[in-house]
């Protein structure tokens, strides 16, 4: 059943990517690290130019969307001599499995790095099973 759900999710994500934005800015895919810790999953995303007011995190059904809006602030009265990178918004979409405690998702941003903490639900935390001796 889990496999079937995953397949459906994948298609949905695909269609999400084709939706156009009304703002005529470039949208970039931020680099992310995902670390699984004992009690949570940590998603870290590089989003330079984004602060806490410009990040939009939404969770709809199983789809977690990270969107960072960048205010383009270009130097005045100067001519661009050389450009190696472009400036634009960031977007990344992930499908979550059911083991995340949705109410406790927490996000922080520091120096352009977004960190999202996805706590695992109590039920899936590692349980210690006691072994009883048979009488």
């Amino acid at each position, binding site marked *: 059943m889990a496999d079937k759900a995953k397949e459906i999710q994948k298609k949905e994500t695909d269609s999400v990517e084709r939706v156009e934005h009304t703002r005529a800015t470039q949208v970039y895919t931020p*680099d*992310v*690290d*995902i*670390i*699984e*810790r*004992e009690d949570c*999953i*940590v998603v*870290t995303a*590089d*989003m*330079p*130019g*984004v*602060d806490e007011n410009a990040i939009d995190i939404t969770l709809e059904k199983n789809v977690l969307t990270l969107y960072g809006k960048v205010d383009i602030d*270009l*130097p005045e*009265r*100067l*001519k*661009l*001599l*050389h*450009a*190696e*990178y472009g400036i634009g918004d960031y977007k990344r979409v992930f499908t979550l499995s059911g083991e995340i405690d949705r109410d406790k998702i927490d996000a922080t941003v*520091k*120096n*352009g*790095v977004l960190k999202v903490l996805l706590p695992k639900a109590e039920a899936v935390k590692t349980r210690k099973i006691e072994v009883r001796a048979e009488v």
Partner: protein
Amino acid sequence: MLWTEGFGTFRRGIDPWTQLQRIENEMNRVLSRYASPSMSEFPAVNIWANGDHAVVTTEIPGIDSDKIDISVVGKTLVIRGGREPEVIKEGESYHRWERWYGQFAKSVELPFQIDPGKVEAKFAKGVLTITLPRAEADKPKKITVKSE
């Protein structure tokens, strides 16, 4: 068609937009090799300038501002810094590892001599902005024409 092999995409059916995007990416990759051979790859910089001063911006998120080292000699600006990977304990694991780690040094050559005493740098939201004024001695002199 040397690059057809690199795409290898026809399995999923032909989507003209995806194909165009791929061609564009490939072209950018090829062209970027010729864009600025004197510059090292990381981090990417944008350079803005007029006759008086230049502004260099770069995106280096996740670094503390006191770990960034900026030096200026003549026409050249050097930015150094680094970032450490997240420490993981036993029983923890990486599901994805896409972000960069390590030390970098990037040198940027400007079209004029820089006044090292007046260089200012600002680091906010992971974006470093360095303002580099042109050295007075390097500025063009206005020569008045005397009439006899």
